[in-house]
């Protein structure tokens, strides 16, 4: 006899509110239904009531982890509507902020995954490392969560001594390579909890159009930093890690390798950062009538903003946001099919879901 087990919207196995109704036969999940929207905020509607400065502050709050990515994508779209080109130094600073945010997000996820595996010591180790990344972000921006770095035409704050940050990046990488990555990739505990569970096949990854590490762990080699470079990514050398297995372990591997690639990008950006202005410096610009679209590779995958403006208007006519979790979340239904009930918290966490983004 099959029975339904609800997980969420408030549950110890979930970090944020959403509901997974699982139809089980014994301990095996046969199917699942997803329900979101418990904290839906109507931000797209709210954006139509904000001017071009206020809307940046608003969209920074779409996500609590990758807040910088949202303002970067929004500002890139608004720069197309205003024909403003950020100076080269601003583009490098945007890369530094984006990669630090990726590090911060991936280490946070590693900690939560460790906790769900019952690996509490690793959870504490990851969060201690995350603090160091946040210290670097605070040193640059003065803030720990909403960095307020991006503006139309550049960035708000300079990195006065980029070379001084390189030892911090070296230390972070050393810690990751020495402790976190080997334990996640070689320990029998991690292997037994992650290998072969929550599989998303390559075919299903394509039909569900998943993005980011979730897609790359199923053999879909897509990364906007490489396929459609923005900011200064065209000048960076890096690899795009891709795994084929499609299970939780593959998603873990992809993120672990991305941490190393992020450190590599950060070192290049900090070393090669050109001198010059950090923004166009003009406060007199006008928005052309029309729509502009911008995409960025966030820690969880592609973020897309479609921004429409009417010339002479203070506020955008429309701001549409497609977040990566919105694309990845429906695939959880396929990942949990056939899984043991006890594995489902880890499986849903393996896409690194962000309900703040989803319930935008």
């Amino acid at each position, binding site marked *: 006899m099959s029975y339904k087990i609800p997980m969420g919207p408030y549950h110890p196995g979930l970090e944020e509110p959403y509901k997974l109704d699982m139809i089980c036969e014994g301990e095996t999940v046969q199917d699942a239904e997803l329900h979101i929207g418990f904290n839906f905020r109507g931000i797209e509607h709210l954006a139509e009531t904000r001017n071009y400065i206020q809307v940046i502050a608003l969209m920074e709050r779409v996500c609590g982890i990758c807040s910088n990515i949202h303002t970067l994508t929004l500002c890139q779209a608004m720069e197309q509507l205003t024909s403003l080109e950020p100076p080269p130094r601003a583009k490098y600073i945007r890369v530094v902020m984006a990669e630090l945010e990726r590090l911060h997000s991936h280490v946070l996820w590693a900690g939560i995954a460790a906790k769900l595996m019952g690996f509490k010591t690793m959870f504490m180790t990851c969060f201690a490392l995350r603090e160091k990344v946040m210290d670097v972000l605070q040193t640059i921006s003065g803030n720990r969560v909403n960095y307020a770095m991006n503006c139309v035409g550049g960035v708000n704050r300079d990195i006065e001594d980029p070379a001084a940050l390189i030892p911090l990046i070296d230390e972070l990488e050393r810690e990751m390579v020495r402790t976190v990555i080997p334990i996640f990739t070689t320990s029998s505990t991690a292997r037994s909890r992650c290998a072969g569970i929550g599989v998303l096949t390559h075919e299903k990854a394509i039909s569900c159009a998943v993005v980011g590490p979730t897609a790359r762990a199923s053999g879909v080699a897509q990364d906007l930093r490489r396929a*459609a470079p923005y900011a200064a990514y065209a000048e960076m050398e890096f690899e795009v890690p891709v795994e084929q297995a499609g299970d939780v372990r593959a998603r873990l591997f992809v993120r672990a390798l991305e941490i190393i690639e992020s450190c590599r990008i950060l070192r290049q950006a900090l070393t090669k950062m050109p001198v010059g202005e950090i923004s166009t410096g003009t406060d007199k610009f006008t928005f052309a*009538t029309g729509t502009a679209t*911008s995409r960025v590779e966030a820690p969880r995958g592609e973020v897309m903003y479609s921004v429409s403006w009417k010339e002479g208007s203070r506020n955008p006519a429309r701001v549409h946001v*497609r977040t990566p979790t919105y694309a990845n*979340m429906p695939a959880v239904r396929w990942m949990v099919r056939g899984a043991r009930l006890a594995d489902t918290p880890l499986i849903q966490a393996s896409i690194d879901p962000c309900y703040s983004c989803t319930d935008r």
Partner: protein
Amino acid sequence: MIALESIQLKLGIAEPWVESRGTHWLSPGSLGLRDVAKVMIESHARFITITCYQLPGVDGFRLEYHWDLDGCLVGIPFGIAGSSIDSIFDLSEAADWIEREIHEEYSIDFTGRAYEPLLLREGDKLGVNLRETATPGASAAGAAAQKEVAK
């Protein structure tokens, strides 16, 4: 670029692609949404999202379908006079949530599919979030701005 030309040929559209502010746009003319979606999927394009604009009065809505083609962002707009358009959920399951969201926010019916319980709102009242229902005032101005932009 070869992929873009190939899609244009498959669809039989004479009008060229127009690159504008980050997107390659193609006007589908009289082609149906499902025919276009089939060609996009055959061409290994990845569905991204649908952006909906409400046009005031009897003008209806404009729905922009966004696809990724090896890093190239493609936009194909469809205008609808009423409040319904074909669903592409059976062709691309990635369209499921955004169709449900637009159904809820704008009260647009995607024909040919069933809706699971509401995604973002409780209750059975549709179109209460983004659809402009008020007559003159601030909201009507917002809709007018969208119409201007969507031209």
